């Protein structure tokens, strides 16, 4: 498949078809298919959206409309680790903005961007419901609470070290 996703992605396309076949019998499963597709590809590039639209017999505008509506979906490749900085009210009043700025400074990227080595994507997010630990960030599924900007370098270092080890 001549997609920008490369030859090694053939396996991913096969998995996508499996997902679509599994869900297409039930009505209203578009969001679930997109969630699963994003798990496979890491993001939802136009080719994937078109493919899903074709196979579910939906207008591609419907699929893209859903992708752009929900903050969970990304149309651009994200890093290996997604850092979500909670900007819910509790975190905000407890200094989440300073934590966000510390991460921006440490990684030399702005909120919403991905580092050049594709290790981190930085994303402000809405309340994750851990207000007792404010301010909170999550890195993939891992939660870090009661943070100050000073905690950031050591937390990121852990992932940088792990990321380098697994890099090809």
């Amino acid at each position: 498949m001549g997609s920008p996703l490369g030859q090694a992605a053939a396996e991913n396309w096969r998995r996508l078809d499996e997902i679509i076949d599994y869900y297409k019998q039930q009505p209203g499963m578009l969001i679930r298919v997109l969630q699963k597709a994003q798990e496979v590809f890491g993001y939802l590039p136009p080719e994937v959206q078109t493919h899903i639209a074709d196979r579910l017999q939906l207008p591609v505008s419907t699929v893209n409309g859903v992708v752009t509506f929900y903050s969970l979906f990304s149309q651009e490749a994200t890093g290996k680790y997604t850092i979500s900085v909670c900007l819910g009210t509790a975190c905000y009043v407890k200094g989440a903005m300073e934590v966000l700025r510390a991460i921006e400074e440490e990684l030399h990227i702005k909120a919403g961007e991905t580092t050049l080595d594709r290790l981190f994507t930085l994303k402000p997010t809405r309340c994750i419901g851990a207000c007792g630990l404010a301010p909170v960030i999550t890195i993939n599924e891992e939660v870090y609470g009661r943070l100050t900007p000073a905690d950031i370098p050591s937390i990121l270092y852990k992932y940088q070290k792990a990321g380098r080890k697994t890099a090809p």
Partner: protein
Amino acid sequence: MKKLKSLDDLRKLQEETYQAIKLRLSGTPLEENLPLYHILVCSGTGCTSSRSHQVRARLEEEIRKRRLGERVKVFKTGCFGFCKMGPVMVVHPDRTFYIHVQPEDVDEILDSHMAHGKVVERLLYHSPRTGQLQRTMDEIDFFRKQLRIALRNCGVINPEDITEYIALDGYRALGEILTRRTPPQEIIEEVKKSGLRGRGGAGFPTGLKWEYAAGYPGDTKYVLCNADEGDPGAFMDRSILEGDPHSVLEAMIIAGYCIGARQGYIYVRAEYPIAVQRLEIAIDQARQLGLLGDNILGSGFAFHLDIRLGAGAFVCGEETALIQSVMGLRGEPRPRPPFPAEVGLWEKPTLNNNVETFANIPVILRRGGEWYAGIGTPDSKGTKVFALAGQIVNTGLIEVPMGTTLREIIYDIGGGIPEGRAFKAVQTGGPSGGSIPAAHLDTRIDFKSLAEIGSMMGSGGLIVMDETDCMVDIARFYLEFTQDESCGKCVPCRVGTKRLLEILERITAGKGEMEDLQLLEDLCHDIKDASLCGLGQTAPNPVLSTLEYFRHEYIAHIKEKRCPAGVCHGLLRVIISDEKCIACGICARICPVNAISGERKKPPYHIHQDICIKCGACIAKCPVEAIYKR
């Protein structure tokens, strides 16, 4: 697990499992000859992220090594609510409440408490108010004024074991209804009698909602559970799903029976992975026991449940938007009527309730509507779960009778404001609510009185703010949120909130005019009147309430170009304290724009405000912390 085929089967299972769990109920006598302990380790999101799972793993390992398995049992539970003190654990039967427990503490707990019955004092809670040691849950200030109904099982049972829920009367209400074939109208009457109002925010009478949904004819109907808790600063739904998922399941099945639905969906946020996982386990176990699916408890009644994951859109908490999203589409609301009770999911009659509302139902049916109606205020019955957060000593989750005053919640339960700072406001209802000043601290909170002072119950987030918080900035913060989360379908909300935000940004940047205040107010009322759904209709509330109670802060920003709380970046001044400055000259050397001048050893130095770029480099370098922003 063997399928339960009748109410008798359920009763038998309850009797068997009750013995195992009764140790954890208050009032259990200590049987001296049989020192049996249950250690409950909080495994809610809060404690999990402070590594409570490592504590649990260590406990289990040590108990295995020491062959204590017969005497000491470890369980994971949902949230106790006292998140500030995590990781927490409770030891039964003596109800000792340990806080900030680390894996290294495990040995001492086993050696001292389990082996000799001697409590480990250093892990107990010290009341900062009285200085006293508070050993058990019942003694701790945070728990004393609470009345836990919706949270009754959170922190008591293992949410991943259905038999523990059954041991505490779980599925009994359902079993009795199905076995006796109670007419649905009778159940609805009981719910109506309880006076329960929807806990999602608007407070619509639950029984009435059920009655409407039951009244529309049709073979195909649906029950929805709104677990899309998008309100920033609220986490009660999350805690209920993590701590007691079966109470929601049981209520949904009963609701299905009442309105004639055979299918339900729980719409839960993907941002709540632990809650989703526990729900999956709960649904699976209920199916295995025959409490969900075809022919429930041999009664012939069938009800199926599935999970739908939200994908991150605040507006999906609005019921018509939620319905669109369950169908896999963009979550855009539509005008009501027709209400979902008539035209809902796939155009069929649909009943939609929030998690906390459902969690109350099984208890109400077990203990009767009148019992529930005996708690609370004339307008708002029962209890309400609140998420306490922000500038407060005891952050966490609490449940109190309606009519408790804000002062009791913030000072008696919440422990007041940390570090001796002054209380400024409490924000309720999130982006749909308002900020309440100190003058209203004695308001007894219920749906009506909160509305009267320009706020609302909302889902129950209580964010406390002190003198370090700028109320204009808070209004801006909420508008940034609603503007971002507006679905864009209707113009008043899409464009109106954008314009509101622009004005607030102007004011916080020091570029506001006095006319802006009138403009803000007019625009707020227009957006309220003209928006399509609850999101837009309530979006101006944070602005209106801060304008009413904290107008002086707006005026300080506009007229004096000053942020009294020292938050708004554009208005900050970097200042050197005359008293603290030792005239070392470091600040003048570090300043990139040469804005600081002074003579060495002759304090104080000065910052020229028209040159200063507020980079803060001098603050970081000052050896005596004499430089600050204000």
